[in-house]
C-alpha cells in the first residue's frame, strides 16, 4: 500500500480499510507537524494540532474530490485549523524575532555543507523567516522548501495562481530586505 498513490489509498479507506489511513499519516506527518510548529512555536501544540488535523481530514474524507491532490487539501485543513487555534487562544502567530537568541527551542536545523549558504548566517535566515507574516512565510516555504507548484500553492492558500506567484515573490523580497537590514545593522 505504501506504493499506492494518494487517490488509491483514499479509495481503500472509503472502502472500509481504516488502517490504510496510516499510509497517508506517515506520508504527510512531517510537513503538517512543521506547519503547526511554525504556527505555534510549541512542540506540544504542534503535536495536538497535527493530530486534530489528521482526524478532521479523516472525518471529511468523503468530501475529498478524487481528481484533486490529497496534500494540498490536507494542508488547507491544517492551516485553517491552526488559524482557528490561534484566534481562539487569542495569541498572535508566533514571531521569534524578539527572543530568538534566548529561545533555542524554535531553532530550525539546517545543512551547512552548502558553501554558498554558509555565507549567510543561518540564524539570520531563520529569524527573518519567523518574522515574516504567516501568508508570506507559508508561500515561501511551500514553494522553495516543500517544492509545490504555484497551482498547488494557490489552492492551499486559496489564491489565484498569479496571486500565489505574487505572494512568493513578495515573501522572498521581504526576506531579502530583512537579511540585508540585519547585515547593515551589523
Amino acid at each position, binding site marked *: 500500500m505504501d506504493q499506492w498513490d494518494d487517490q488509491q489509498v483514499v479509495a481503500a479507506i472509503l472502502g472500509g480499510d481504516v488502517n490504510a489511513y496510516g499510509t497517508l*499519516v506517515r506520508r504527510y506527518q512531517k510537513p503538517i507537524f512543521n506547519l503547526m510548529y511554525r504556527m505555534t512555536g510549541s512542540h506540544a501544540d504542534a503535536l495536538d494540532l497535527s493530530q486534530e488535523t489528521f482526524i478532521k481530514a479523516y472525518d471529511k474524507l468523503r468530501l475529498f474530490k478524487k481528481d484533486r491532490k490529497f496534500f494540498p487539501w490536507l494542508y488547507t485543513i491544517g492551516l485553517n485549523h491552526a488559524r482557528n487555534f490561534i484566534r481562539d487562544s487569542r495569541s498572535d502567530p508566533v514571531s521569534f524575532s524578539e527572543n530568538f537568541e534566548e529561545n533555542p527551542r524554535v531553532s530550525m536545523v*539546517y545543512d551547512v555543507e552548502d558553501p554558498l549558504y554558509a555565507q549567510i548566517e543561518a540564524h539570520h535566515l531563520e529569524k527573518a523567516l519567523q518574522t515574516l507574516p504567516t501568508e508570506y512565510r507559508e508561500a515561501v516555504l511551500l514553494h522553495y*522548501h516543500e517544492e509545490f507548484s504555484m497551482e498547488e500553492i494557490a489552492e492551499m492558500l486559496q489564491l489565484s495562481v498569479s496571486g500565489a506567484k505574487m505572494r512568493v515573490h513578495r515573501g*522572498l523580497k521581504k526576506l531579502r530586505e530583512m537579511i540585508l537590514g540585519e547585515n547593515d545593522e551589523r
Partner: protein
Amino acid sequence: MKDEHTEPFLGDPADKPDELDLQIIRGVKQLRDHEPPPTLLPSVMLAIQTRRPSWIKRVILWAQAPRSITFTPVRWVPAIAAFLIVFAIAVVFLSDHRTPESPVSQQNLFPIVFSLTGAEARSVSIIGTFNQWNPKGYEMQWNREKKAWSLVVWLPEGRHEYNFLIDGNRMLPDPEALLKQDDGFGHQNSVLNLREENGQTI
C-alpha cells in the same frame, strides 16, 4: 528542486534573482524539518479506530455484517398462545356477527332447533335421514327453565324425515311437526321441508 527558481519573478528585469536571492532560496530549501514525535501516527490511528462512526455508516455496517439468528421455541410459546387467543376471539366475533339473511356456511346449511317438551325420559336423541338414523352425536340437551329437550342441527335444504329416540329404545314422532309420513313399518316419521326462505324452528 530546480537550481534556478525564477518562477515567481514576474517579468520585471529588476526583479531577476541575484546571487543573494539564490543563496536565500538555497538556504530555505536546506532548512531541515523537525521530526514529528513518534506518538503522532499511533495517536491518530487510535483515535480514528476507536471513534464512533456516523449513524449512516453504522446503518450501512450493520446491514453489511453477517449475523446469526437463534430460535428458541420455548420463548415463542407466549407469543403463539397470544396469537391463538386473538385468532379464536376473532373467529368467535366474526361468527356472532353473521347477517341473518346470508347462508350460514358455504355448504348452505341452516341451523334447525329441534325441541321436545312433555316427554318423560332419561335421554333423548334426534335421528333421521340426515344422520342415517344413527343417534351418536345427536344427543339432545335438557333445559330446566324451558323444561324441554333441545338440539341445534345444521341441515341443508330439502326434505328431511326424523324422529326422537327416547332412552335409546323408543321412537317418538315430533308432536309439533306439520307433516308426518308412514314409514311402511307401522310407524310415522316427522317430515321437515327445508327451503332457504323458511328458516323455521321446530
